[in-house]
């Protein structure tokens, strides 16, 4: 006995289908697990130092709804204090590459190229609060000591400047 009749006689079709199914479900499961990696990494970054929140947050990580991650690469709205702080950090990184003092229009241009949203508004707030200061030479600098302040110390209740 050989050929197709041999395969049929030895349950070859069923075994092949079973093998394909096992591989398919294996790969699908792997893809499902990998799809949660970014959330798990974000969660780890945000909460690694607060172990008492581990169990409640596990529900958030693996829950149905997608966790809202505060981001400056989002929908174009800036909420204080978190988003401004994030934007400030991103701008500080950019100016670290550009060097100080820096040209403000260039910083805005580079920040927009990097995908930061509402850069003008963010910079306006930093200027009004004296975190970025302009010199008589038309160049801008970060105010001395501003990088050492905690974000909440600087932003809470600060609406008058």
């Amino acid at each position, binding site marked *: 006995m050989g050929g197709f009749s041999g395969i049929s006689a030895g349950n070859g079709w069923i075994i092949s289908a079973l093998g394909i199914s096992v591989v398919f479900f294996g790969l699908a499961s792997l893809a499902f697990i990998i799809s949660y990696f970014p959330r798990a990494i974000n969660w780890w970054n945000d909460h690694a130092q607060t172990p008492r929140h581990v169990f409640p947050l596990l529900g958030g990580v693996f829950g149905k709804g997608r966790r809202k991650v505060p981001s400056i690469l989002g929908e174009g709205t800036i909420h204080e204090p978190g988003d401004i702080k994030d934007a400030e950090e991103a701008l500080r990184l950019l100016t670290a590459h550009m060097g100080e003092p820096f*040209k*403000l*229009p*260039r910083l805005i241009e580079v920040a927009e190229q990097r995908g930061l949203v*509402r*850069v*003008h*508004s963010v*910079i*306006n707030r930093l*200027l*009004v609060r004296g975190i970025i200061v*302009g010199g*008589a*030479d*038309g*160049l*801008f600098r970060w105010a001395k000591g501003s990088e050492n302040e905690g974000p909440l110390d600087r932003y809470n209740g600060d609406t008058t400047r």
Partner: protein
Amino acid sequence: MIPVDELKRYEIFAEMDLTELRLLSAMAEERRAREGEEVIRAGSPARTLYVLQEGGLMVVFPDGRAITLHKPGRVVGWSALVSPTHYTASVTCLTDSTLIAFPGSELLRLVQRNVVFGTKIMRKISEVLSRRLPFLQEKDKRLLKQRS
């Protein structure tokens, strides 16, 4: 048209009498601009002088240096009153802003007709100009020197 009382708030018009303020009020218009919007482009014909009513502006000079204006009453677009009437810098809104726009031709006509008014407004413009002179390009400085 912008109310006289509104214009009186700003330092540039502080020396104006009621008649002069009424003339300015008649020609002034409110202009709203969005965050990131370029209100003035360097090199383009200067047709309007603006006074900042609310918001924040960034004045960008051709070499990439800049100054920012946040205080109401700050003036941009002085080139509308000074030959060769082309803007020497670009102006972009840092946030949603409200500006008072004065048509340069009408303002210049008023300056030419009324010597007292002309002296007052040009004194204020020269104050603005002196603060921004370090940022101007050499060719613009030369032109201004020739005019003066």
